[in-house]
């Protein structure tokens, strides 16, 4: 089962969902803090759900306050970077570029994609952590090239 866990984790790197920052999080995990990565992930998804809700509400109002939207996305990008959420981070970057260009349609399109990537990552990580808990002490996957 540990091998299965390691393979799942490796696939998250290989498919570009996670980057090396996730490995940095794992290095902060030890016997005294055995669930650190899962706890930080949970914090990220709780915080990012709030940001997604804020952005959703701002977009639904119809009047595009690009400065406010950019500010929300700055936060979102920051926390996505900290956890190694590579695809989500990339969509955050695109969204901010559309904000700076004042491109409402681009913002809407990118935000839709961002929510998809975010949701996919959440499901994959939840599955990974669930299996990891069942398997016991985690293996460390090799660093992505």
């Amino acid at each position, binding site marked *: 089962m540990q091998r299965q866990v390691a393979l799942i984790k490796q696939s998250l790197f290989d498919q570009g969902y996670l980057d090396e920052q996730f490995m940095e999080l794992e290095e*902060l995990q030890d016997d005294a803090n055995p669930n650190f990565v899962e*706890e*930080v992930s949970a914090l*990220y998804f709780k*915080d990012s759900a709030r940001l997604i809700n804020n952005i959703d509400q701002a977009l639904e109002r119809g009047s595009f306050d690009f400065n406010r939207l950019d500010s929300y996305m700055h*936060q979102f990008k*920051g*926390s996505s970077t*900290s*956890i190694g959420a590579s695809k989500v981070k990339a969509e955050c970057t695109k969204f901010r570029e559309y904000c700076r260009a004042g491109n409402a349609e681009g913002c809407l399109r990118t935000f839709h994609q961002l929510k998809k990537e975010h949701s996919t990552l959440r499901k994959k990580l939840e599955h990974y952590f669930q299996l990891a808990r069942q398997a016991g002490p985690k293996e460390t996957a090799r660093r992505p090239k």
Partner: protein
Amino acid sequence: MSKVETKMSKQTKPTETKKKLNVLIVDDDAINRTLHARIINQIGGVSKTAGNGEEAVILHRDGNASFDLILMDKEMPERDGASATKKLREMKVTSMIIGVTTLADNEEERAAFMEAGLNHCLAKPLSKENLLPLINHLLDA
């Protein structure tokens, strides 16, 4: 100890700071506060957190705060990192202050942040690998 073992022990990188540090982590992002606190813990320090620059200033207002190191995020609501650093220096706070920037910040923005009174700047995400040698270098200075 053999010559080889002596050489290897000299080359071993430190895993903790040269002295136990009391650190203030100033960042509006809860994940960064958690991460940075964990890094500080792993390199042998203890930490307290503040959610923005204004909270950091308020902590020092009564003159009893005593931090060896402040990790100061640049972009924060209420009071940003540059303003908080400038204010703390005006209040005669002598803690080491390391500014935490992003890769998107350009040279001018980093220079302006340094001008506020930082000892150094680092781009996030922070790691033991980039923070520990810098802290030990600043402790030596």
